[in-house]
Structure formats: structure tokens, C-alpha cells
């Protein structure tokens, strides 16, 4: 028992280390480019530097994403391996760096240095383009989430689209093109079968996924991430997973049908969340829907022939997609950057503010204080903290699913989508629309 607790502690330490690295680096670089450098430029060259300052600020989301994606993948792969090790009474990678913290960095380096092999008879152009097409949407897809994650921080406001939800859904259907291209261009029959499976799967599961998201949008009344997250402010009961505040509107004097409708709405939303999780698993090719890869059937599916950096890109995209769907779920269903209990968020913010004041407040001159304030904004930190906890909790849950469930067969997969999930999604869509009016 003791050694098990020890292992869990190691995992927690590793997670903390990596989250500090990821978010420290991303935010540090974003802040230096978006706040510090423009301030320096403006103070040095006045009006003539304004263009450059604005250009730098516009670049911030791109740089942030470019930094975030590989770092995040490094952590997620490591976390998954350590978690699977925990679930399967092993220790997992623990050699590279303290406690194996840099195992994935070493793996990534190895992949980058490996020889790239192009199979004979492969369509070289398509073969090379496939990982790019697979990967590009995940970079583009992270961007609107930045605003939601950072609580609409001024630096990331430009990437907050009013129709961010649709944007992500549109973008997330592109990767399958890359999969089909890669599978076809590899000149390998296993790859081809994997690619075709992937196409079928992506099309079938996009529909219930879309329907469940639309239902949430209906519930929230907006397509804007920041708005959706803000609507769920307050407490657990306001989250979309429990009907988006339907339960909080109830009072002692509410009529019985209102109470019943609110409860039903909450039940529907929980089902909706389950639906979303299932479809998201299928969208990002995770167990039990990892048919395109299906190691025991198709060797490695569509990426059988890929090696070196091209394989690394596939890998990167896969895990980034997993993070995207998790964050998406955190924003859409789990209250975004808001704490589950009413007082908790304020406590976080005021506690942080107190800490900052204790550390920097007394002794720093005014201008430095402003810089520190813009570097560590308590409200943003609290937002980011909660959304990170929620997203990674979902990522960990995906690992748990991966450790448990066997894989579906392709016809069963299609059956499940078209005969179960799509009708369920439609029923839920209608039910939520009516119930929302009744509450």
C-alpha cells in the first residue's frame, strides 16, 4: 500500500512539474512578446514603434500555440504512460530525468533523429503532405480555445471568435483527409484499410458529436466560448452538464412541472455529456474506437509506414486533438474556468492576490508592479487553473478508458453510431429545447 501511494505521489509531482513547465513557458513567452517587448518598444521609439508593437501582439497566439502543442504532447504522453502504469500495477518510465520526467522529450528527440523511410511505390507528395494536413487543424483548433482557457485575456481576445464552436467543429473534420491521404499514399494494404475505416468512422461520429454540441449551444444561447464559459459562472449547479443553471432557478414556490423539467433537463445534459465523451473518443481515435490504428489487426493502421518526424507529427496531432476535445468538453459542459463551488473561486483569487501583495506589493516601484500585475493576474490564474484541472482530468479519464475497454468492430461501430447515438442525440436535442422553455 505504501509503495502505491508513493507512486501516485510521484505521478502528482511529475504532473505539477510539467504543468509548471508548459504553462510557465507559454505564458512567459506570450507575456514577453505581448506585453514586455511592446512596452519596451513604445517607451524607446514612441509612435513609430506602434506598428511593431501591434505586430508582436498579434503574433502572441501563434507563438503560444506553437510552444504549447509540443510541450503539452510531451506531458500528455508521459502522463498517459505513467497512468497506464499505475492502472496496471507497474511503474512506467522512470529513467530519463528526475523520475522519468523527460522521457518523452528523449523519445521526441529520438523520433526526430530517426531515418525517414518512404516505401517503394508510395505517392511521395501525398505521403509527405498527409501528416501536415493531419496536424494543421489541431494547431488551428487550439487557437480559439486560448481565449476560453485564459478567461478572455486581452492578449488572446483577437482569436476569440463569436462562432468559435462552429469554427472548431469545422476544423476538426479536416484531419480525416490527412488520414485517408496517408493511408492511401503509403502503398500498404493495412494502411489503406485503416484509412478507409477512419473515413467511415469520422463521418459517422461527427454527426452525434455535432448534435450534442449544438444542443449545448442551444442551452447556452451562444456560440462564443467565452460567453458559454461565463454563463456557467457560480457553482456546480450552473454547469451545462447539470442543465446550465436550470436547477438554481428553482425556489420553494416553483411549480411542480418546473421542478420536474429542471431535473429532466439535468438528466438529459448528463446523457449529453456521455454522448459527447463517446463521440469525442471516436473522433480522436482513442480506445475503444481506435480502429484506424487497431494495432492487433492492422499492424498500425494508417501510419504503419510512417517513421521519424512524420510519425512524430501524427503522434503530436493525435494527442493535441485529445487535449482539444477535453478542453472543449471542459468549456462546454464543465463550467470552463469556473470553480465548482461558489466561494472557491473568490477564495482562490483573493488568496493569490494576497500572496502577490506579500511578495511584490510592498517593495516594488509602481511600474514594476504593473508589470508583475500583468504577468500574474489572479483572476486569470484562477481561470486557467480550473480549466486545466478539468481538461487534464478528462485526459486522465481517457487513459482509464484506454486501460479497460476492448475495441469495437467496424460494423458494430457504425451500428452504434447510426442506430444508437444519432437517434439519442436527436431525442436529446428536442428534449433539451422543450425542457429549457419549461424551466
Amino acid at each position: 500500500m505504501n509503495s502505491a501511494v508513493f507512486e501516485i505521489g510521484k505521478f502528482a509531482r511529475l504532473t505539477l512539474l510539467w504543468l509548471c513547465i508548459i504553462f510557465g513557458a507559454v505564458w512567459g513567452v506570450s507575456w514577453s512578446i505581448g506585453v514586455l517587448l511592446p512596452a519596451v518598444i513604445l517607451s524607446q521609439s514612441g509612435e513609430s514603434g506602434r506598428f511593431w508593437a501591434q505586430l508582436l501582439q498579434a503574433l502572441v497566439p501563434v507563438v503560444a500555440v506553437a510552444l504549447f502543442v509540443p510541450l503539452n504532447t510531451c506531458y500528455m504522453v508521459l502522463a498517459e504512460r505513467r497512468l497506464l502504469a499505475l492502472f496496471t500495477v507497474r511503474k512506467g518510465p522512470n529513467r530519463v530525468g528526475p523520475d522519468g520526467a523527460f522521457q518523452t522529450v528523449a523519445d521526441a528527440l529520438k523520433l526526430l533523429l530517426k531515418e525517414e523511410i518512404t516505401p517503394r511505390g508510395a505517392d511521395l507528395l501525398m505521403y509527405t503532405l498527409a501528416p501536415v494536413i493531419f496536424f494543421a487543424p489541431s494547431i488551428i483548433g487550439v487557437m480559439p480555445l486560448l481565449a476560453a482557457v485564459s478567461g478572455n485575456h486581452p492578449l488572446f481576445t483577437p482569436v476569440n471568435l463569436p462562432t468559435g464552436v462552429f469554427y472548431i467543429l469545422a476544423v476538426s473534420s479536416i484531419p480525416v483527409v490527412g488520414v485517408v491521404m496517408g493511408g492511401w499514399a503509403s502503398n500498404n494494404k493495412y494502411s489503406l484499410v485503416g484509412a478507409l475505416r477512419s473515413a467511415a468512422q469520422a463521418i459517422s461520429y461527427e454527426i452525434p458529436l455535432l448534435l450534442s454540441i449544438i444542443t449545448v449551444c442551444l442551452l447556452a444561447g451562444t456560440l462564443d466560448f467565452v460567453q458559454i464559459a461565463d454563463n456557467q459562472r457560480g457553482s456546480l449547479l450552473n454547469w451545462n452538464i447539470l442543465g446550465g443553471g436550470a436547477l438554481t432557478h428553482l425556489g420553494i414556490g416553483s411549480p411542480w412541472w418546473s421542478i420536474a423539467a429542471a431535473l429532466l433537463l439535468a438528466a438529459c445534459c448528463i446523457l449529453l455529456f456521455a454522448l459527447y465523451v463517446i463521440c469525442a473518443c471516436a473522433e480522436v481515435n482513442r480506445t475503444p474506437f481506435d480502429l484506424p490504428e487497431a494495432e492487433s489487426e492492422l499492424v498500425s493502421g494508417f501510419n504503419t509506414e510512417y517513421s521519424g518526424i512524420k510519425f512524430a507529427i501524427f503522434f503530436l496531432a493525435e494527442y493535441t486533438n485529445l487535449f482539444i476535445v477535453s478542453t472543449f468538453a471542459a468549456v462546454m459542459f464543465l463550467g470552463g474556468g469556473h470553480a465548482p463551488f461558489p466561494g472557491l473561486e473568490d477564495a482562490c483569487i483573493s488568496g493569490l492576490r494576497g500572496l502577490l501583495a506579500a511578495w511584490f506589493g510592498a517593495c516594488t516601484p509602481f511600474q514594476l508592479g504593473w508589470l508583475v500585475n500583468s504577468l500574474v493576474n489572479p483572476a486569470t490564474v484562477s481561470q486557467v487553473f480550473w480549466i486545466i484541472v478539468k481538461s487534464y482530468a478528462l485526459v486522465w479519464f481517457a487513459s482509464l478508458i484506454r486501460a479497460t475497454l476492448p475495441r469495437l468492430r467496424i460494423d458494430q461501430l457504425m451500428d452504434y453510431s447510426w442506430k444508437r447515438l444519432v437517434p439519442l442525440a436527436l431525442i436529446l436535442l428536442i428534449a433539451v429545447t422543450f425542457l429549457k422553455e419549461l424551466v
Partner: protein
Amino acid sequence: MVPEMTEELRANKLKTDEMLINMGPQHPATHGVLRLILKLDGELVKHCEPVVGHLHRAQEWQGQNRTWFQYQALIDRVDYLSGMFTSWALARAAEKIDDVKVPLRAEYMRVIVAEMNRLTSHLLWLGTFGIDLGAMMGLPFYPFREREELLDLLEAIAGQRMMFNYIRIGGVQNEAPPGWFARLFKFTGSFPDRIDEYEAILSNNPIFLKRTKAVGILPRKLAIDYGVTGPTLRASGVALDLRKVKPYSVYDRLDFAVPVCNRDGDTYDRYMCRIIEMHESNKIIRQCIEQIPGGTADVLREKRKACSACGKANCPHCGGDLAIMVKKQNAGLRVKAGEGFAAVESPRGVLGCYIISTGSDTAYRIKWRNPSFSNLAVLPELLLDHQIADIMAIFGSIDVILPDVDR
């Protein structure tokens, strides 16, 4: 079960082509070096031809060119997951020719180690079956953890984890080391709970049920026609278990059940049969530990220490039933002239060994009847009109060991 798309497509004059896929011998899921030449219509298997022999090591020929003493050490390699059974079949056939009565304690020891070996084999099968079905990460590790414990025990008694060379012509190699029986007994106490845990993960899982129920149905008649044996046969409703039908060794003194499915077996039935067999093997081991003449090795060792007559003819603690070997083996081991066949129930089915001996220190002819070979022969019939994913489920469920096929 399988959508009949091809007929409609042909009716609509959509031209489809069959795809020839060469699965293996380096495919990750063919359990070694099996090569399957598959004709696929989309995802459907239209024709399957297993190509065996990649692992052929001339085990029978080697038996004719090695002395008995040397061949015993080699024969574990035929079926590396259940080396005890190959040794046992060889030993029984040779003992039959030699007309040797194996001491009772040795027989009990044989049953114990063989059932342990059956457990390790079934546990490995369970793990790889999970991998075949796509439960890649979690389930496979749990059976392997228990298998590790058993292998440690087998290593302690036989010297190696898989190539035991423990069951010998005329008995078993040596007495168990101190504390061995206690460790084994402790393991058997906790093992049923572990099996329940595997079952909690798999047995009722809806995805697992969908993947295994009504998949790869092996009708009773087909199974008999192909000479399928072992749990694969019993899942198809034929109660053929040599331990029950033709009790050898001390199996007639033990109380255990043989799971038989009373309908045409599918993948799920084969899975359930093996799961129940694990429970039964566990029971057998416990009974053997309780019944073994002379008690556990530690008890016996104490008694022998206190005994003054040890080594003499009238000693109650050595020799007779309590010996582990008829007489100490040496390099000049010979088997009388004659021929004999003996079979044991290995984890994969009936494992038979036929020997012709001329009385020299090598066999004149050795023939093995390996269960994997006949079980594999039925695979093309089972795979017909199933999907690619089912190949793995079915192939995993008939539990074939390729070295056993190719010898």
C-alpha cells in the same frame, strides 16, 4: 451479424475487387510466425490459407538422434507455454514401454506442476486474447502479474521459468525447495479473486460481448471432423477431457469439473471455458497439496531429518510412494524395446506422444500429436465471411502456439 453488402453491390454493377493480404509472419497479432494468406472483400474474409512451418525445428527427428536423457531437456521447447505437458507425455509414453510404476508422490508433484503450467498458459492466453480484442493496455498486465508469481514458483522448483525439464521418465527431477508449498498454497488462496477481477473487466463488458458472442461459431460436428481438442472442443459441446475420460496419473482421485458448453461454441464460450478451467486447475492444485503423500516438502524434510532409518529399505519416509523418482537418472538412460502411445490433456488439448524404442539409448521413432496443429487446421473454416477484426478474436480464442504447430 455480417452485412451482406456484396450482393447488392454486384446487382448495382459496382465493380469491386478482392484484396489479397498477407498477414504475418511478422504481424503483431499472429502469436508468433503464422502466415495467413487472406482474400478480402472489403473487410470480409473470403478465403484464408494458413501457412505453417516457419518455426519447424525437426523436434521428432531430434528425438531420434538424441539420447533419452538429452531429448527430455529439448522437448520443453515444443510448446514453450506448457513445457510440463510435453515432458509428461514423453515420460508417460516411455514409462508405458518400460512398464515403470511412478511413485505416488511423484505423480502428485506432476499434477501440481502441470496444473500450475496450465494456469500460466491460460493466463498468458487471457492477456493476449485481450490484446487481440483491442484491450491493449490494461487487461494484459493483470494475468501476467499472476503468471509471474507462478513462474517464480516453477523456477524455484525446476530451475527455469519455461524450459523446465522437470518431469522425467520415471518421476520428477527433484523435491520442492523449502517454503515452496506454502507459497503455492497462499497463491491458490488469492487466485480465484484475481480471476473474478479479470471477469469484472471483460466477461460482461458490452463491447466484449459484441466482439465475441456469435463470432466464429464452431459446430460440434466440424470440431470433431477436424480433430479439434482441448477447451476449443469442449466449448463446442464435446466433453472430451482426458483427465476425466481416461483418467491418468492421480486425476481420478481429485475432485474437479470440466466445463463443457452444451451448444455450438463461439468465441465467448471458448473464453468462458478457459476461465472456468483456471478455477478448476486452482482447485486441483489445492487438493493435491492437501493429498500429497508424505505431506509438503518441508514436513517431509523434517520427518526425514528425525528418521534414523533413512536410506535403508524399511524407511517410512523415503522410497516407495514417497520417492520422487524411480531411480536416479543418468546419461545412460534407456527405454526397453517396444512401442507405446501416451497422451495428456495439455492446455491446448490432447497432446500425444508415440514412441518406438529398440532398447538403445535413443528412440527409433518419435511422433508427436500436437493439439495446436489440429486446432489451427479449423481456422480457415471459422474465418470465412468474418471481418478482419474477427480474425484476431477467433484466432486468439482457439489458442494456438506456433512452435507447437510447426514442431
